[in-house]
């Protein structure tokens, strides 16, 4: 090894603690990147493998009913590989010992052969046996929560009749990775199950022998899906087809894709921040290093080392730190990525996780980091390389100081000389001061993201489930019913209030844009279900016209006063134009709304309702559940409080994980920035501080001066951190606005305090560590040196 390399190693050793701090920051950035990308790739590959192995269909369609012969016509559409005609139905589940309503989606499976599409993944037990048509396969998430195993029996109430069926197996299907009950937005594995049963059994229960009401198709690669959708619609229209859709609109696939997209966003945003901070830190350290070694550089140059060699030497120091960080970050990131992937796998109930750590991805992440680092320190290195020897030998002229702004404004008397030292030092190098403040502020901002997410989500739940929806139970009927149904519900003991609901599937069109959603009826002067405007005030529906969620309005490009086309997908299937009366604000899902009697008139089917929202006496709720369960006309029952509690728990856990990560990373950045600042300050002022010690200042007094400077930087950073935190969150949230969920950016007051507290703690810790160096001040040596 050359002498220059030995110098390199020793120099590195000299600045080891600062180098370590910076390497930590780089490692954090690389780790976040590798973690997210590993999880992302693993999830994607796992999902794609699952789709492939279990034949996730390409095209889906629901209809009223059609004879099985129609399925053969579907198979003849060019480009279609497989057709699986099936029977589906909502149902209620009776579970002994569990009072709350459970709804299920029943899906038929053929028992005499493997289905061409959408094959089940059996986790435990066996598929439905040919000879035992009373068997079912139950979704594994539901079975897991309720402790069900093959051999257990389950009461299924379908079409008004109750049957006891035996569980033959527990499994999953790629069509139901995201299991969301109709009318809900979040998965609820406790109150919603998917049940697969023999086609013959289900068809018989629904009086659909020899018919089907749902179909899934596999499409040949290269075929035009749009063409096939159009043809399917044409064939199924006379049978009450609701409109075919492809994977992009399939609920489970859509939700999953959204999640992966958000993960990708995280994978790019955080590492960018970390690397920015790391680059800045390295820049400062490198400059400092070069500054202190000016004479050495001069000597080397005088003795014939080329500019390139000197530049490369300093670049190597910087790269050594970067490489250390990258390696550590990659290892950590891969491990975390695996765990994150497994977390997601358990959350989504994917059958398995294919762990993918792509070499190119890691190399890219590492390479980008190294590049960023090198670019950031280029200036310092260049300065080192290009210094003329003679100039390098000359001592630095004394730094020029000026009175600060504060003093000129007359506050001088309020500052002690020590404070004035601090203030003037900060003003003398505004760039360094400003960047340090920004560094700490970034840390604080990241910290705030964790709590802001939590606050925002809590606000969303509050608005949606406290202001907009205040019912205790939401009931849906198998078929729309007349006004007597309200009276029947009101008569149930324990029911305090009943508000009718009506919803029909429609397609909205404005110009060239269309969207498929539900048109819901709204009661004027309602208590339980209300619409809110953008200020979250209840909005009474106007007598005519349709209202849209503002997100949907934006998507379709319409404003109040414009007209849109409403195409009914069921019933009379008419298409009419309606005026947009107002825009409403919701955060979960999107829809269109109309005053309920206007809707009934519009649909021309008389006064009928598709469901009801109930307020229930808490003491009688079990009785109400039983009454609803025993009524064949009731298709689904959702207990709001329970659902919200479960959503809170799920999301809450996610938030905690996210918040912990964010806090750790933020603390790392804060620590790194402050520690480096402290060390560099110390190095630059050791002479001053030693002189003061000689003059009789105690250690406490000079550490106060050192830390005082730090304190000003941190205190200045805190308000900036709060601003940055909000801004970062707003940026992230914008990317998260979808038609599924939109999260408002809400910051509770205690978030500010929390972020402040952690920043202060983190910086106090690093300052104390740096302060130990103060004890090593060489009082004597300092008096004999010039600088």
């Amino acid at each position, binding site marked *: 090894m050359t002498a220059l390399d030995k110098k390199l190693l020793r120099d590195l050793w000299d600045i080891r603690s600062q180098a370590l701090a910076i390497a930590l920051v780089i490692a954090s950035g690389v780790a976040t990147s590798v973690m997210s990308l590993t999880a992302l790739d693993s999830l994607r590959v796992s999902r794609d493998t699952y789709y492939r192995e279990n034949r996730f269909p390409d095209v889906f369609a629901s209809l009223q009913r059609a004879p099985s012969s129609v399925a053969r016509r579907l198979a003849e559409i060019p480009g279609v590989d497989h057709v699986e005609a099936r029977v589906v139905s909502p149902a209620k589940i009776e579970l002994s010992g569990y009072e709350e309503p459970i709804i299920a989606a029943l899906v038929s499976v053929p028992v005499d052969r493997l289905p061409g599409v959408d094959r089940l993944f059996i986790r435990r037990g066996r598929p439905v046996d040919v000879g035992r048509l009373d068997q079912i396969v139950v979704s594994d998430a539901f079975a897991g929560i309720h402790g069900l195993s093959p051999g257990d029996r389950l009461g299924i109430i379908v079409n008004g009749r109750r049957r006891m069926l035996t569980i033959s197996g527990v499994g999953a299907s790629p069509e139901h990775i995201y299991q969301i009950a109709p009318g809900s937005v979040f998965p609820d594995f406790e109150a919603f199950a998917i049940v697969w049963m023999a086609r013959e059994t289900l068809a018989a229960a629904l009086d659909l022998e020899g018919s089907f009401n749902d179909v899934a198709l596999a499409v040949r690669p290269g075929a035009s899906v749009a063409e096939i959708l159009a043809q399917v619609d044409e064939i199924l229209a006379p049978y009450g087809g609701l409109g075919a859709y492809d994977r992009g609109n399939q609920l489970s696939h859509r939700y999953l894709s959204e999640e992966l997209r958000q993960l990708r966003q995280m994978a790019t945003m955080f590492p960018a921040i970390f690397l920015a901070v790391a680059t800045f830190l390295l820049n400062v350290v490198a400059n400092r290093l070069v500054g202190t070694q000016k004479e050495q550089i001069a000597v080397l140059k005088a003795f014939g080392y080329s500019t390139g060699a000197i530049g490369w030497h300093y670049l190597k120091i910087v790269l050594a730190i970067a490489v250390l960080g990258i390696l550590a970050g990659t290892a950590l990131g891969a491990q975390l990525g695996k765990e994150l992937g497994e977390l997601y796998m358990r959350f989504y109930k994917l059958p398995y996780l294919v762990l993918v750590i792509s070499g190119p991805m890691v190399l890219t992440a590492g390479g980008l980091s190294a590049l960023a680092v090198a670019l950031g320190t280029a200036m310092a290195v260049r300065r080192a390389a290009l210094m003329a020897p003679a100039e390098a030998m000359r001592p630095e002229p004394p730094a020029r100081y000026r009175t600060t702004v504060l003093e000129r404004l007359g506050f001088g008397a309020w500052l002690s000389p020590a404070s004035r030292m601090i203030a003037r030092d900060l003003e003398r190098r505004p760039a360094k001061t400003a960047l340090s403040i920004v560094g700490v502020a970034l840390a604080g901002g990241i910290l705030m993201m964790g709590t802001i997410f939590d606050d925002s989500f809590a606000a969303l739940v509050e608005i949606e489930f406290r202001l907009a929806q*205040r019912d205790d139970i939401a009931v849906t009927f198998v078929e729309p*019913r*007349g*006004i007597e149904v309200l009276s*029947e519900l009101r008569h149930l003991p324990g029911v*305090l209030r009943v508000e009718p609901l009506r919803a029909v599937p429609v397609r909205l069109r404005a110009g060239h844009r269309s969207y498929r959603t539900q048109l819901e009826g709204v009661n004027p002067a309602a208590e339980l279900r209300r619409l809110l405007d953008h200020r979250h005030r209840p909005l009474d529906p106007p007598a005519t016209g349709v209202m849209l969620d503002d997100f949907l309005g934006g998507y379709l490009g319409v404003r109040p006063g414009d007209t849109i086309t409403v195409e009914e997908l069921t019933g009379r299937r008419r298409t009419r134009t309606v005026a947009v009366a107002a825009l409403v604000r919701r955060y979960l899902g999107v829809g269109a709304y109309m005053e309920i009697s206007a809707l009934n008139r519009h649909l021309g089917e008389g006064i009928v309702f598709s469901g009801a929202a109930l307020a229930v006496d808490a*003491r009688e709720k079990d009785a109400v559940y039983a009454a609803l369960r025993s009524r*064949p006309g009731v298709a689904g029952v959702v207990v709001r409080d329970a659902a919200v509690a479960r959503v809170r728990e799920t999301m809450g856990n996610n938030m905690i994980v996210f918040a912990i990560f964010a806090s750790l990373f933020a603390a790392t950045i804060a620590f790194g920035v402050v520690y480096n600042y402290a060390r560099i300050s110390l190095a630059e002022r050791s002479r001053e501080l030693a002189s003061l010690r000689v003059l009789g200042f105690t250690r406490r007094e000079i550490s106060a001066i050192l830390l005082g400077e730090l304190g000003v930087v941190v205190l200045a950073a805190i308000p900036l951190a709060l601003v940055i935190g909000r801004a970062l969150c707003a940026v992230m949230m914008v990317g998260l606005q979808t038609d599924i969920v939109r999260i408002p950016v809400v910051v509770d007051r205690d978030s500010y*305090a929390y972020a402040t507290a952690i920043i202060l703690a983190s910086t106090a810790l690093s300052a104390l560590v740096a302060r130990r160096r103060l004890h090593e001040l060489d009082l004597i040596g300092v008096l004999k040196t010039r600088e």
Partner: protein
Amino acid sequence: MKKKRRIARWIALAVLAAGVGYSFYPQAVTIEVVRVDRGAVRSALEEAGRTRVRNRHVVTAPVAGTAGRIALEVGDTVVAGQTIVTLTPPMALPLDARQTEEAGARVAAARAALAVAGEELAASVVAAELAAAQRARLEALAAHEQVAAEAVQTAVGAALQGAARQRAAAFAVEVARQEVAAAEAAARWSSERVRRNTTVLEVRSPVAGRVLARFRQSAAPIQAGEPLVEIGDTADLEVVVDLLSADAVVVFPGMPVRLLRWGGGEVLDARVRLIEPAGHTRLSALGVEEQRVPVVLDFTSPLSQYERLGDSFRVEANFTLWEGPDVLRVTDSALFRRGDGWAAFVVEEGRARARAVGVGHRGERFVEILDGLREGELVIVHPDDRIAEGARVTWAP
């Protein structure tokens, strides 16, 4: 100088501490409030029902023959004695003494029925007058609050029943009279047709009213006793509501009822006349069996208000089970269960305080408060788990 610096330091610390303290100080929870006030609480029972023409009569063919075409349409007005249809006897029908005797016997029976109907009418007139007098007397006493409200209600119910029976009896007399006329006509016709070759029998409407239903239109052979048309006086309507048997028990004759959503704008008034003693089984809207009891209501609003109503029109009957015109009340969404009783969150000095509440009757939107709340207090509606005892609350004005 030093003092200034020390002051500056303390100020800075104070500001920081204040900032942190303020930040951690729990935010007030945003809620919606409503005031406890005095007003009307109405406990009601609502059920769909339909109108019914009180007295209907089905005109049947008195004898076999060929009935001509019935020109009358449903909704046409008929007067008493108006010809409904012309009956032509079958061509060859040997006459015998037995038939003549039968015809005569029928006439005699009809006359006897008329006599009975007449006596029933006389009896019902007396009963009706008695009931009406009783009602008048009790209502006068009630004006001085010397009798219980229920007694008045009962008397009113009885009076209404009496009047109705009288009307029915009168109607029955009319019908009987027409039956006599018809039997006599049939008998005459049977004997006369011997003398003439063919005779036609005019079937006439026994009463005035409107055609409610027409059972046949075209000319065709007809059997004796087959229905031709149904005639009723649509100005004389009642309402039938099939109540759940559990509800029928709480309802009593004379109970005031409001009729809504019948198509006209105003709310019509009615009273319960009769709760039938037997129920029947019906399938509910959601598919379970229920026991229903028909309850009959009489209109108390003037006819001019509901003359557009016809037979079997849908109305919604809202039975007032209990009415308190001026009681302490609060919106029902302010109450929540606490153990076996109810409680509410009262806002006191900007904080939520839970209080046990004694509730009385429950109306549609309001609940009667017996104790626990005072007039004018603010209570939280739809309280949820964010609100703890003593929590600071705020609301939009």
